[in-house]
Structures are given as C-alpha cells and as structure tokens.
C-alpha cells in the first residue's frame, strides 16, 4: 500500500498544472458541446498536441502517440477537474467508435475516420437500441438487404443521443436474417445525410430531449462501409460496449456531487437552522459519504490492478451498478433536505442550483436503466463474478 504517486508522476502533475495555468484563458466556457465550434476545435487541438486528449492514439491517426499510462491519465483528469476545465471532446465517436476502429477497423477506415473524429470535424452517433431491443440488444430487427453494391436499410433506432447534431452513425443492422441472432448482425457506417433518414427528438421525463429516435426508410449504404465481417457486428459492438461501461458510475463524479451537497446543507436554512444540523438528513449525508469514499478507494484499487495488468474480477463488475445508485441517492438527499424548494424546476422563483437536483435525480434514473440496466448488471455480476448458472432458455413451444 503506497498512496504516493512518486517523483516521476509528481513531476508530470506539475507539468499539467503549468499547462493549465498558461492556457486557462484558451479554454471554452461550456464544458460539453454536441457540435464543437471553432473555439472548441482549437482547444481540442491544443490538448491533443500536448497529450491531454487522444493521448494513446497513434500520431499517424492524429493522436498524441503516447504510451498507455493509466496513472498519467488519472493525473490529467484530476487536475483538469480540479481546475474546472473541460478535458477535450467527450462524445460517443471519440470514447466508443475510435477505440473500436483501432481494434477492428481496416487501415483505410482508421486513416479516413479517426483523425477528423478526434479533431471534432466529424461527429458520430450510435445506432444500437431499438424499440423492441433494449436489454436483449442482439434481437435487433433493423434490416439491411443486399441490392447490388448496396445494403438497403429499413427500421428504427431509439435512445440515439446527438443524432440531431451528428454527421455520421455507427449502426447495428441485421444482414443475415436466417442466422442465429448473435451471428446475423453487421456494423455499418453511414452519413446522417443519406436520403431516407428521419431524426425525431425524444423528450424525456426531465423535459429536455437528450435523445432521439432515428427512422430508416430504404436508406442505401455501400456494402464496403462495414467494420469487421458481415455477421460479425455483435462482436464488433461488444468491443464498444466495453468502453461505455467503463464510463458509467465514475466515483469521482459522486465525490464532486457530495461536496456540492455538503455546501448546500451548510448554507441553506430552514426555521433558522442549517440543513446539516437536522440529525436525520445529516445521518443520511454521512452514510452516503461512507459509500462515496468506499467507491473512490475501490476505484484506486481497480486503477492499481489495471496498471499492473491484473484482472480485478468481480470488483470491476460492480462499478456501474453501485456508482449510478449512489449518484441517484445523493440527488435524492439534496431534494429531501431542500423540502418544498426541492420541487422547484425550470425558471421558477426561489429556484436552487438551477433545478439541477431534480434533473439529476431523474437523469440518474436514466443512467441506472441505460448502458445495461441494474438488473442486467446483476446478471453479469452473478454469472461472471460469482460463476452462477445462466437462466435456462425457455422450452420451444
């Protein structure tokens, strides 16, 4: 057990801090954007050149070309978070499509797509879920039938974030209808400008349209715009899903949220008493603090295992389930402690924190459901982590 990073890493941290001090003025004000503007693109370029974005992606594809070093990545994230600066573009093209292409794309595909994606010139959306295929994603029904040199696509996708702003889509379609469900899927790439695509915003319970539905009617896509072989799309997609699960349930996000609640409960008063002086809410706060610390140290443990190339086993599988749940409970505590103020929303008078506790409370529920529901996570934990048997297939009628 040694919680110090050591001189090499402390020197690196100093380097990052100096960069931040020098370039703070160049950082865009908005932490996230669906479509990067000129200022955002310049920031992204600056980060890539200095190895703070696209760090391990080879230079030939427009990355920084650094060696994978999980501790340096963490230091970068820690320092940018502490400084309140955005750490480069975070979209599904960069976090999911690029890693997939690096693993399974052809040299031409890597050459063509990775660099413009990293630079924010091409924005992607992910076409996976369908109305009839959520947890059972492999049952997806969007059809791609062969016609000359093209596939002709018909069907519907749902939960497609950024579809309205995207140039391109990486999309799962059924190309081999007679094959077993996992072996009949292909992973296609095509422009969102292709005739026959209609995007409809999907308004959620938060009141915002964070997602879209995407409809395909006779959309023609050249057959060579495929990643992996025909029928191999499920396995290509799993490479991507692995990257997504890693992003959900980040304990450091919960740590930041906990601090916000402590501030809230120390400043907000009711009947002249600070909220934190109410023993019931305070007890819940300390209990959640225990859970946040536990998950943060758990994260350090996973980080150590990853840096040594060790498989942490069940410890890795529980992160999404626990992390999303804790975030949701933190938002619930903030709402409860606020009393009636906790229900104010939109642009209401007396609004606290822009109504963000309510929107987080609701959006967290979306995260508990999305990216593999809590129940699917429990299947994974019990089957892969505890070696329990899979649900038997129902008998054929």
């Amino acid at each position, binding site marked *: 057990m040694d919680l110090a990073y050591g001189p090499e890493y402390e020197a690196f941290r100093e380097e990052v801090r100096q960069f931040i001090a020098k370039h703070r003025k160049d950082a865009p004000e908005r932490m996230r954007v669906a479509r990067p503007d000129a200022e955002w693109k310049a920031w992204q370029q600056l980060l890539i050149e200095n190895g703070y974005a696209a760090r391990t992606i080879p230079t030939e594809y427009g990355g920084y070309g650094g060696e994978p070093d999980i501790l340096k990545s963490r230091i970068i994230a820690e320092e940018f978070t502490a400084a309140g600066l955005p750490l480069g573009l975070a979209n599904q093209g960069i976090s999911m499509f690029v890693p997939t292409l690096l693993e399974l794309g052809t040299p031409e595909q890597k050459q063509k797509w990775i660099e413009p994606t990293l630079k924010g010139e091409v924005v992607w959306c992910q076409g996976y879920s369908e109305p009839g295929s959520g947890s059972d994603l492999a049952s997806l029904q969007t059809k791609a039938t062969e016609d000359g040199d093209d596939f002709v696509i018909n069907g519907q996708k749902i939960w497609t974030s950024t579809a309205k702003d995207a140039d391109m889509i990486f999309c799962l379609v059924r190309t081999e209808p007679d094959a077993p469900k996992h072996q009949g899927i292909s992973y296609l790439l095509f422009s969102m400008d292709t005739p026959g695509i209609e995007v409809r915003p999907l308004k959620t319970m938060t009141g915002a349209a964070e997602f879209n539905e995407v409809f395909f009617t006779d959309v023609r896509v050249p057959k060579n715009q495929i990643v992996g072989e025909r029928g191999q799309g499920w396995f290509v997609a799993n490479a991507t899903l692995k990257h997504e699960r890693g992003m959900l349930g980040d304990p450091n996000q919960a740590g930041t949220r906990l601090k916000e609640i402590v501030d809230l409960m120390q400043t907000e008063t009711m009947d002249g008493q600070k909220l934190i002086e109410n023993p019931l809410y*305070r*007890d819940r706060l300390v209990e959640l603090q225990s859970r946040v610390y536990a998950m943060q*140290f*758990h994260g350090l443990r996973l980080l150590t295992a990853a840096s040594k190339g060790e498989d942490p086993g069940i410890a890795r599988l529980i992160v999404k*389930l626990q992390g999303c749940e804790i975030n949701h409970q933190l938002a619930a505590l903030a709402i409860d402690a606020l009393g009636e103020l906790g229900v104010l929303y939109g642009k209401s008078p007396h609004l606290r924190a822009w109504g963000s506790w309510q929107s987080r409370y609701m959006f967290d529920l979306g995260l508990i459901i999305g990216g593999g529901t809590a129940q699917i996570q*429990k299947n994974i934990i019990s089957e892969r982590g505890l070696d*329990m048997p899979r649900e038997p297939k129902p008998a054929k009628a």
Partner: protein
Amino acid sequence: MEFGLSEDQRMLQDSLNGTLERVCPLERVRKAAEGGEAMADDVWTALTELGVPGMIVPEAQGGLGLALLDAALVSEMLGRHVAPVPFIATAVMAPAALMRAGSMAQQEEWLPKLASGEVVASVAIAEKVSGAREDAGVTASGGKLNGKAWFAMDFGEAGLFIVADMDGGLHLVKGDAKGLARVGLTRIDLTRSLGEWQFDDVEAEPLSGDTVGALNAMRDAGRIMLAADTLGTGWMMIDKAVAYAKERKQFGRVIGSFQAVKHMCAEMAAELEPCRSLVWYAAHAFDEMPEEGPLMAAHAKSLTSDVGRFVARTATEVHGGMGFTDLLGLHYWFKRIGLNRQLLGAPERVRREAAVMQGWAAD
C-alpha cells in the same frame, strides 16, 4: 501509487486461511460454542505459532512489528472462519494502548507476554466510546478503582485488563487483583466473549502517557478490526449462499439459475466488496495518515455494519429453511456480524461522531 496488498500480505492471508480451514472447521466452532469454552485453546495455539497475537507488537518486544492493515487482514480471516479466539482486544487494542501510553516498564512487562499469547488482555472502554448504561462506569482515586465496566472484549481467559475510567484515564489491572469480580455475559455470538467487571477498591496501575491518544487509538483500531471481521464473515456467507444456490434444486433446476436468487447474491457482492477498499484505506490511514484515521475508522465501521446486516439476512434467505436451522451452522456467521455491529458504537452513533469530526454537528 499502489492501492493493494503486497505479495507478503497475500501470503499472510492465504496461510492463515489454510490454517483456519484445518484447525477451525465448523465442528470445532460448534464444540466451542456449545461447550461454553471461553476460547478454543487449540485454535489459539495454532494462531500463536503464526505470530497472530503479536501482529502489531514491535519486534523488540517479541512481536512481528507489522502494520494495522496486516492486523485487518488477520481479522478478516478470523471472521471468515468464525474463529472462537480472542484477537481484537488482546492483539490490537491493548498493544496499541500500551505502545502509546504505557511506560517503558509497562511495555517491557506486558507486550512480550501479549505477543507470545501467554497472556490474553481484555479491554473495557464501552462507557467512554459507545455510552454508559445504568450504573456502569469506573472511577479512579488513590490508585484504586471502583464501579463497573460493561462489555469488556476478549473477556474469557484474560489475565490483564485495560479499563477506561469516566475521566478518560486508562488503567492496567491484573486478572487476579483483589476486589475484582468478573461477570460473564451471554451473547448471541458465542464465538467471542464479552463480560462485565466489578471493581471494589481494586488496585490498578495507571497508563501515564498520552491516554487521550491511546483511548482514541483503541477505539479506531478496534472499529477497523470489527469492520474487517465483518468483511470476512460476510464474504463467507456470500460464498456459502452461492455454493448452496448452485446445488439446491427446486422446480427441476438449481435455485441459483433463478434471477430472483442470483440477484440477491449479486447485490450482496456489490454492496460488500467496496467495503474491502474502505477497510484497507482506514487501516492504512491509521498508521500513515493519522489526521484521516478517526474519520475513516468511523466510516469503515458504520458502512460495514450496515452492509453486514444486509448480507447476513440475505445469505440466510438464499439458504431457505436450511439457513434457519442450527444444523447448517450458518447462524454462527449471522450472529458474529450482529455482535460486530453493536460493539464500539453502532452505525448511527458512529456516523454522528463522523459528523462531529467534520464540524457538521456540535460535540
């Protein structure tokens, strides 16, 4: 940055696990519990050979001179095997107090005896740490102790007592001191002993060093050890529940293939595994980052107690009716978790202390 166990620490746990599997199977636990043994002498002897009583005692006094994290790993294994032996008071809390507040002479006299397992030390600080009941409480004057101390840990065969008086002073009392009466308490968990001492003008030797530091160290180290014990006890319950669910058949299939049962097991693992990191961190902080030690000990104790309760009931439910029987012996683990939860401050009390430490509540 390395947040994990060293090769030596993994070997320590493996070898202890192997020894306990051999010398402390369920039949041995049952014999000790049903026979009213204050401790399982043969198990204690085997642990003594591995140096367990002297884990944190300096090498100069015959101990292994290891860290509190190493002691936590031992505590976890003792919990895993519901070992009916003293450990937390005699091997961790008492040495921690002697090392902080004992005179050289006191350390020279007692630490070697504790490290070798020749003497078992019991600790009674409940009145100062978790609250005084009824007429409990000890007063010291003129080198004599009077009053009662409840919930003394590692009570059974203790030859040395460390007791806190109501002013926070700490005293060493020999097991055969005149005027000392011992009253054993019957508790749900028969694998560890608890008792009450009654003092009638009992001669005692004060610990004259940093008694505030020593009392806090006993409280924090004790809480971390109880949390580690529950971690080990709880994981054994999960392992047993999973194994049972993979064998037991109903409706023509093993019950472990039903999601209702699988999800209970997944929830237990998902709740308990992060406690491991919290226990490790708290133990490490106790030695290396003393400013964080008390808060982290409080978090480890309260979270593990709550998660432990959930695991204890859920694992029992997975076993169905068998879990409710005495025959299966699962209840030894259930009850051990129950005892750990209440000692040295139950979760609500400990969380209030954690709030005070952070300036969120008045003392």
